[in-house]
């Protein structure tokens, strides 16, 4: 097991290398000139040259890449063309916010999605199954900006229960930075006011963001559960008097979990990426907006940095997913 983990971590380097290389190649394919974006509309050729030189864009692509990788090894992700600040600094500001949102959304999706999927499977083709289907499909097929806006309109505009935007009230000082997660940090520092405020701020976007993943998890759990419910051993367990949650979880869910975990792992990446729209709608100060702006601006250092971050996160999560296969099905050989 440890050997496998170690091997996979080595491969992580390979993945990051590949990801950056591809990004780099792509950055040269996508039409657009970052220098011109930076120098502004009215810059003349000289200024452009100067900016290019400054950004190192005048060098051959391979040299640029080599420079980038060299920087990467020392933890230097370069300087953003758009914000003129080190990309790492920018990402460290935005990443925790996105991560906090994604993790919470993720938890919501799992906590609701798995039981809902089990229920739908057990009650196949009953009212409850259909209700869960409608609920989850509306989750996946209503775009986040639509549902997000509606939620803001209802819970902020009409009812006024939740704030519309931001991570915490402007008047409240954010908790001291430990994890970068406001919810955790405020609890750690015992600042209940901050906790309450950040909870109220995160709840709507997290729910909206979780909605689509919830659908996927629910449907996948349902499908795999249905397969398990038909298995002989499940019937044996019932005949032996096993029933209730233990039956559903240990005998059912456990064996239905492999495809579910797989989509969960994949969807966590999607959550990080999908946070973009949610963040825009809810004015959530996360990476999503930063990246979208960077894309529009062709801010490659920022895009690369983001990609590196996400890919490391992604690979780590899916490493856990892959390892979980061995636990979930001991017959699978490492």
């Amino acid at each position: 097991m440890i050997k496998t983990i170690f091997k996979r971590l080595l491969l992580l380097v390979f993945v990051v290398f590949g990801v950056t290389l591809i990004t780099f190649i792509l950055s040269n394919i996508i039409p657009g000139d970052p220098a011109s974006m930076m120098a502004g509309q009215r810059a003349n050729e000289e200024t452009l040259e100067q900016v290019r030189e400054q950004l190192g864009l005048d060098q051959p692509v391979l040299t640029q890449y080599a420079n980038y990788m060299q920087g990467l090894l020392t933890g230097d992700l370069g300087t953003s063309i758009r914000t003129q600040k080190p990309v790492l600094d920018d990402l460290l500001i935005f990443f925790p916010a996105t991560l906090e949102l994604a993790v919470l959304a993720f938890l919501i999706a799992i906590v609701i999605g798995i039981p809902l999927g089990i229920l739908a499977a057990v009650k196949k083709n009953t009212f409850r199954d259909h209700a869960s289907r409608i609920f989850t499909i509306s989750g996946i097929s209503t775009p986040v900006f639509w549902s997000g806006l509606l939620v803001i309109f209802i819970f902020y505009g009409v009812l006024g229960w939740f704030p519309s935007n931001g991570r915490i009230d402007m008047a409240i000082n954010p908790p001291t930075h430990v994890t970068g997660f406001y919810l955790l940090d405020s609890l750690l520092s015992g600042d209940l006011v901050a906790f309450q405020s950040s909870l109220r701020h995160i709840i709507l976007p997290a729910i909206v963001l979780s909605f689509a993943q919830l659908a996927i998890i629910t449907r996948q759990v349902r499908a795999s559960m249905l397969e398990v419910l038909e298995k002989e051993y499940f019937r044996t367990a019932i005949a032996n008097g096993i029933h209730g949650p233990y039956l559903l979880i240990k005998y059912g869910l456990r064996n239905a979990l492999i495809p579910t975990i797989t989509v969960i792992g994949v969807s966590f990446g999607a959550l990080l990426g999908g946070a973009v729209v949610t963040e825009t709608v809810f004015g959530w100060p996360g990476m999503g907006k930063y990246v979208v702006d960077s894309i529009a601006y062709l801010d490659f250092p920022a895009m690369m940095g983001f990609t590196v971050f996400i890919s490391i996160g992604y690979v780590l999560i899916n490493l856990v997913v892959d390892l979980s296969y061995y636990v979930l099905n001991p017959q699978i050989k490492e």
Partner: protein
Amino acid sequence: MELQPQAESVQAQPVKKSALLYKLKKNKLTMVGAVILGVIILAAVFAPVLTPYNPNMIDAANKFQGPSWSHWFGTDEVGRDIFTRILYGARLSLGLGIVAILIAAGIGLVIGTISGYFGGMIDQAIMRTMDMVLAFPTLILAMALAAALGPSIQNAMIAIALVKIPVYVRLARSETLSLRESLFVKSAQTFGIRPFRIIRKHIMPNSVSPVIIQGTLDVGDAILLIATLGFLGLGAQPPAPEWGAMISIGWKYLLDFWWYPTFPCLFLFLSAGALNLIGDGVRDVLDPRSSR
């Protein structure tokens, strides 16, 4: 000693077909899904008959009209009839979304089962490549691919298909890992059946279920993604009546002109729902056990 064949031995019936029908009929929800999708498709095909408007005709005087008899779903910011645009858009959006996912799911299933079945170096190579693809934020990758392939609607579709492949690879592979150890696969191995046939005949049909579930859920996402690419100039160009684009432009008007984003959303929801119902049905049909 040879056993005597029964005199009244029944003629081999074309059971397969009847089994299919039986299952579909029994699965009322699948029928519901098929009917919904069928109606949408028919409406799209007969759009010119069903609506007097041209989907791209601008009628500035009638912009932002609410739903009425003359404009069932109202009009948009330049006075185009939303109902008409939804019908015409169905051809584009549904078609592209479904095809993109079919491609992605198909390729993903093949690669995933191969990767899972062979394991070892092949598996590592495939999965790390997939990790790379997946690790990219979908949008960046789709954008880059669409840009590299050249902006056209087909290429946008291909880009989305490519971006979506890894999900299916992972799903198919995870199922394969378990199936590979099952006795019926092992017995096929003992016959000396070649790996590719084992994958095709034994692994794929048995690992297709999560792929179908994911696929039918993904179509809606693909439609929205096509719209996003459209914004970056990489997909369908305006004024193509594409659902995703209608939604993404229209959502800003939700509070003032609710009908604008809502009806396209509704159709996306209906199609996604219908596809999902059909997907469940297909899964059932493919699974002989569920016919009992």
